């Protein structure tokens, strides 16, 4: 599971039937400082995340498991909203 920030939305009317009822968001993966890391991706929203919120997302085959119909071609899904983040480094 990784950290990311929701930066936008993607609208699609023609898509595979098994994900018809889900929102698709544009997600920017971030590092522990909140800085962008890599290119933005698309992720299915299973927790009703809002714009600009920091989220936890999963990638790979497991991403379709939170859906009502787990037989769906989804390889990245938002599975949690981050309330706060505390990182301690060895000093």
């Amino acid at each position: 599971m990784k950290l990311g920030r929701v930066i936008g939305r993607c609208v699609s009317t023609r898509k595979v039937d098994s994900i018809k009822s889900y929102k698709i968001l544009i997600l920017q993966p971030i590092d522990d400082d909140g800085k962008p890391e890599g290119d933005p991706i698309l992720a299915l929203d299973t927790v009703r995340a809002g714009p600009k919120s920091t989220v936890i997302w999963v990638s790979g085959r497991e991403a379709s498991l939170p859906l009502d119909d787990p037989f769906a071609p989804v390889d990245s899904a938002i599975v949690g909203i981050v309330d706060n983040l505390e990182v301690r480094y060895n000093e």
Partner: protein
Amino acid sequence: MKLMRVIGSVVSTVKDEKMGGMKLLIVAPCDLYGNPIDVDYKRNVLVAVDAVGAGEGEVVMTASGSSARQTALTKDRPVDTVIMGIVDSLEVGGKFTYLKEGLEITKPKTVMKAEGDVKRKVVKKGGGKRR
């Protein structure tokens, strides 16, 4: 999932038995504006199976890895990239960065707020079939 633009198609006659009956398209990764990304003047193109009926020039979403086998079309087939949706519009920070050709926004207001969702409609020009 990744944003891709369809830039061509593939025809293959000699292939595995399980690969039959699938439309193969060439896709290139693209940015949030729908423009293909060139890395050192090269496009890292992929061959993807089309599960939704995409056409050339359209911006699509692709799923890769073992997730690609999870459609009715690609079940138990040797496939690792599938097109699972056609993108109508992309929106970053309340502004549309990409809008599919032939679409227009009925309410051109700010569409993204910090809290809650704002509903909007996207209709097709020329009385096309609405979904």
